[in-house]
């Protein structure tokens, strides 16, 4: 089983859009996938039309195997389940380590309800500082959307810094350019610089700025599902292939 986090220490960079489409692409490729909506705003739950669960705010939630499995919702798509938002983050690291341990009660309980996932995808909120270290160490890969601006460059460097300081392997970081705009030559320049400065950290795929992705809020479904032939859908599938290839080698 693999854990993939969509993470950035900045908001509004495309984490949720990525998590929604990446989870869809994974499920579509036959991976039994659980998308955990960790953002209390519940954006990815919203895209899948799943109502945030009200009862998940209690502590010890992840300890309670039954409560946990009961709050999982099947999405409209095969192989894809959602763990809706609105949960406390306390014990989340415990949850992650249990998910990785095949002999844990949690894993056994999931197996019993045929939810032995191949991939767990985390849609992270921007500020999970208390938790981030645990998430980072549990995750097999961290997908980081980066808008090609000078400010984002700084933010990404801070993230790399954090990894080094905490002895976390930076090769878990898989950054990609998000919302890039061809007409802004500044974007092109920044991307070139950043690729040079952070060799190997950046994926080849870019998710350009398109209205198809903006409109996801109207359709309330992954763009790959609603406009499978759109440039955005093709790009997200490429992102999926590239991430999976990298994780396969890891």
């Amino acid at each position: 089983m693999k854990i993939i986090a969509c993470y950035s220490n900045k908001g509004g960079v495309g984490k949720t859009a990525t998590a929604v489409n990446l989870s869809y692409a994974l499920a579509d490729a036959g991976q039994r996938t659980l998308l955990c909506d960790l953002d209390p705003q519940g954006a990815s739950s919203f895209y899948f039309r799943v109502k945030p669960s009200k009862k998940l705010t209690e502590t010890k939630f992840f300890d309670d195997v039954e409560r946990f499995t009961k709050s999982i919702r099947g999405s409209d798509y095969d192989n894809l389940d959602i763990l809706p938002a609105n949960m406390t983050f306390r014990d989340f690291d415990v949850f992650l380590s249990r998910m990785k341990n095949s002999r844990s009660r949690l894993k056994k309980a999931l197996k019993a309800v045929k939810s032995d996932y191949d991939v767990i995808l985390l849609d992270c909120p921007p500020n999970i500082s208390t938790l981030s270290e645990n998430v980072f160490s549990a995750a097999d890969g961290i997908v980081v959307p980066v808008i090609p601006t000078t400010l984002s460059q700084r933010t990404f460097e801070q993230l790399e810094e954090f990894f080094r300081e905490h002895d976390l392997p930076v090769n878990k970081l898989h950054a990609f350019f998000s919302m890039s705009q061809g007409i802004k030559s500044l974007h092109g320049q920044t991307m070139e610089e950043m690729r040079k400065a952070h060799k190997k950290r950046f994926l080849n795929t870019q998710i350009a700025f398109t209205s198809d992705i903006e409109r996801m809020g109207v359709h309330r479904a992954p763009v790959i599902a609603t406009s499978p032939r759109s440039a955005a859908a093709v790009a997200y599938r490429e992102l999926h292939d590239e991430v999976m290839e990298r994780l396969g080698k890891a």
Partner: protein
Amino acid sequence: MPFPSVPIFLVPAEALTAFAGATTGKLTKHMTRSEEDMPFALLDTFDETLRQSGMCLLQAGGELTLWTADGEVLTQTGVDQPAGFVADLAEGPVKLALACVPELRSLIPLAQGRLQTAQLALLDKEGKTQARARFHILTPDLGHRIAIAQLQGLRGYDKAFAQLQADLLGAGAVPYADRHPLIALLPEHAPYVAKPDLELEADATVFDTANAIIAAYLPVARQNEQGVVDDIDVEFLHDYRIALRKIRSVVSLFKGVYSDKQTERLKQRFSDLMAPTGRLRDLDVYLLERDFFFDLVPQSLHGGLERMFDMFAAERTVAHQKLAKHLKSKGYATEITKLVSLFEAPKRLHRGPDADSQAHDFASALIWKRYRKICKIAEAIDDQTEDEEVHELRIHCKKLRYLMEFFAPAFPAEEFKSLIKPLKKLQDNLGLFNDYSVQQDSLRAFLDGLGTDDHAGNMQLAQSVGALIAVLHQRQLGERQKVVESFQSFNSPETQQTFRDLFHGGEG
């Protein structure tokens, strides 16, 4: 993610119309139907192996869909050819699940018509699907329209799923486990049964019993006629012949039931029905033995066998045409119809001196006599005994088996079974002995019948067949050596006691 098993229901097709757009509580039913319909066929073997194992196989639009007994739904695409043998299907999940279909049986369409598909989703206020169903709507050419519904629950939406089930049941749906689609589509359908269950009164007379058996097996033979004519698979002719052979043995084994003249007359008429089928069945058997024969001789001799089987195959084509023509002839139709009506109203049959005996007593005497005869022959068999004697033993065992099967309803089932099982084992041994011997005879006859025009080819053939005969002879000797032992294990002290108890008042 789907629930562990997919619940399947049969729904009256009319019920679906009411579903579209209907709301229950906070959920709305959203229905999408396929634009076009296409031809479908429900496939099974003639004897309905699939239905009997709770499976339902649908072919439509180049795709096979299989519903299994435990609610699984398997599909396999790229199936464009009409039904046939499972072995000829491309590899795939459906083929794997069809392993239960007997090798010799072909899949045939038992119901045909037009298929439409539809999807039903239970949507909440957010437009989220909370449960769904997929429908195969079948409109048969003749029969009732039904839909096979396959429900899918989504994790965390158990209530909606229960709601959907309740709605379907409310609309007259029946769980798949309770009714097979074939039966729902064709309520008049009478499944083929090769061994009809005979229900006999406890005080039935032998005359009634004989007539009942014959009246039950004549339709069995008749039901196989079309399959023989269409050459669907070899089992049609096999079953046809078994039905007639059973009838013939009733006539010959139930001595004194009919008058002598009547007995002779019936024997002749049924033998005449059997006669035209013999050669085709022989050829079917040879061709089925193909792989077995090839395995028996070294590769260097395969060329000759190849030649022989080509000749068999060519002859089979001719033999089949001949039999098909016969079965379609007016003369055959008249004769078989006459026989059917004769046994439907058996008053016209001439009774023999034992016609009014009680079936039970009559059977006991016959079975006991036959059993004693078998013991007598078997006890005399040793290494020196002529093969003829072993053949005799085989024939008596076969007759015993027929008698026991015919009269089974007149005896306690448990004890009967305890006798049939060891008898079957003995018969297997004797059967193989006989098969090897018959195979050698027919191979010799084949060699004798070869023309003289292709000398070189025939030499090659004779060599291969000669080697084959030698191997078969060895095999026959092997079976021959087992006979004494097989008989002893059949005729255990318990078997002896049961025979005495059941058929000879406990004495003997």
